[in-house]
């Protein structure tokens, strides 16, 4: 029975790994910082809520992922034409817009909040989340080493120059954006089943977006090591400090963020001794 609590902690850790790895594929590689990644999480959760009872779990999770992917592919084309701080603010605005649209849609459906009955047990969810975290980590790993990844890094450094040397920047950016939405959509579906309660105003929580970015900053977002370190560090810190003054824990988090941005912009993974030069 004591195992159950640790499974819960493990679930949180895996969730953050999955989310941050996905975020890295976009924002770490291309430099287009997404501050509204919760939009994919929320959409995935909504899909799960709509399909619960109608479809089996094995179908819901992939469908949630696909829905998020489709949304990203659709919105990515116009969105990625926007650069720098505008893009950051845009992603945030998108998340808020999606939230209010879902609220209105739920209103049309005559629902205001949803309770999920007969949700799968925590072990099942844990294994699914493990799979998602592994998939996301693998994605970051593969992207990083591929020509696609090199193209992304090139456009991060200088988009015009990359274009000139033949990198299909528009297509690559869009692909990165859509890929970064895939796993968060699935994660959202799993977590809403864990919470067994859905309310649009609460599921599209900007704190999730900010937490992802914080973990990427602290852990590093150059490759797959970063999110692993960031998520692990974050969960470790919260487990250690939670019980004490919670506001103090938040203050510490804020301080950590500042310290890392100023002194270690590559995050924890940047502080690790470089084993060999990355190609």
């Amino acid at each position, binding site marked *: *029975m*004591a*195992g*159950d*609590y640790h499974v*819960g*902690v493990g679930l*949180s850790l895996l969730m953050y790994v999955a989310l941050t790895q996905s975020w890295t594929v976009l924002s770490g590689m291309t430099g287009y910082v997404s501050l509204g990644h919760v939009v994919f999480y929320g959409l995935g959760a909504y899909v799960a809520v709509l399909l619960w009872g109608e479809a089996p779990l094995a179908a819901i999770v992939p469908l949630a992922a696909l829905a998020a992917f489709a949304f990203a592919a659709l919105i990515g084309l116009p969105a990625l034409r926007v650069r720098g701080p505008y893009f950051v603010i845009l992603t945030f605005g998108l998340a808020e817009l999606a939230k*209010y649209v879902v*609220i*209105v849609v739920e*209103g049309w459906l*005559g629902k*205001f*909040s949803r*309770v999920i*009955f007969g*949700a799968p047990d925590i072990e099942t969810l844990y294994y699914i989340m493990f799979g998602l975290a592994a998939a996301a980590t693998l994605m970051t790993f593969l992207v990083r080493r591929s020509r696609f990844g090199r193209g992304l890094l090139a456009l991060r450094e200088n988009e015009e120059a990359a274009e000139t040397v033949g990198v299909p920047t528009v297509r690559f950016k869009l692909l990165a954006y859509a890929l970064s939405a895939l796993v968060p959509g699935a994660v959202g579906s799993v*977590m809403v089943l*864990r*919470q*067994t*309660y859905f*309310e649009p*105003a*609460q599921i599209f*929580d900007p*704190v999730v977006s900010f937490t992802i970015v914080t973990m990427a900053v602290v852990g590093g977002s150059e490759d797959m090591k970063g999110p692993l370190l960031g998520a692990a560090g974050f969960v470790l810190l919260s487990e250690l400090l*939670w*019980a004490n003054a*919670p*506001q103090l*824990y*938040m203050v510490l988090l804020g301080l950590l963020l500042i310290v890392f941005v100023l002194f270690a912009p590559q995050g924890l993974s940047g502080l690790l001794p470089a084993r060999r030069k990355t190609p």
Partner: protein
Amino acid sequence: MIRKFSIALAAAALFAAPAAAQNIKIGFSLAKTGLFAQAVPSQLNAYELWREQVNARGGLDVAGKKRMVEFVQYDDQSNPGNAVKIYEKLITDDKVELLLAPWGTPHHFAVAPVLEKYKFPMVGNTAASVQLREIKPGNIWFVTSAIPDKMAAELVAMAKANGYKTAGIVANVLPLAKEIKASLVPALQKAGIAVKVSEEYPPDIKDMTAILTKVKAAAPEALFVLSYPGDSVLYAKQAKEIGIAAPFQFVAVGPTMDFFGKVVGPSANGLVTMGHWSPAKADWKRAKPFYDAYVKKFNEKPDYLDTVVSYMSLEILEQAVAKAGTDKQKLRQAIASMTFDTINGPVKFQGVQNAITPTAFLQIQGDELQLVWPKAIATSPFKAKTGW
């Protein structure tokens, strides 16, 4: 030397033994940060006051034996997912003997399956939704009688009893408001009360002028403002400015909190709100002492809704534990079957719901909140609102 030492040790052990009656660990999570943080103090204060009072009496009576209360609390950061994790931790890791409820409907729903899984009974408090009835009974109970559909029925009854023929609805799009509205509209129709104006608004609304101008033009006699604390304040201020003249104005959530009176001031006089408790009710013997103790400790009035239901849930727990100890099976039976004496009068559960406390409404009259409906428990008659 060793002999003296062992005698001393034995003596110490003899004296130490009775004093080491173990503290009882009671666990819960409340949002100290995030969206709900500003609503939580109402509940936390009730918990703190109760613990202080119980420990001052020598501790919690656990089936005859007194044990000092020790809280194990965490911050769930307003995230129901965290609440799930925390309650699992409380049960399996911290191994608390009793649980108290978190704040808010989403958290109660999130935590219910955990209680079900570990067969750990808990008395819920600050949750209000028609969906509460869908939760499997046995490990969670809800003290509040402010359930949306019952409230809608009673609001209409109250409007009818006062002879009002027209109504208006201004509702937030968040769950509680919409649930009330969903029951309110058909109930009004059935009672033959015409709905002259019906508007909805999003939770982050900054200005209600457009809505309230429409309301003023429609001039309903009964206006139902289904709002949350932040927008309740906005409504009160802007309704005063625009001059909403309806004699019956119901503001859902907010007026029971101390700060509402401080922010809105004397123009709040006459507003009706949801709540089923008043210290003015003389036949609830515990009501006034609780009020006085709260004011003394916190220098402000309690929230007549959240603080009261939270405290009630503790009284229920206290009385059940005195009878059944902390054995989960016995405790469950005790909570499900006993009739409890609380600051809100008697309480008994039927399934997950409180079967005795009626769905009631309070009205701000002068400096006090009075019970005005149902007439059977009213401490003061309803007075039409005349201006701001």
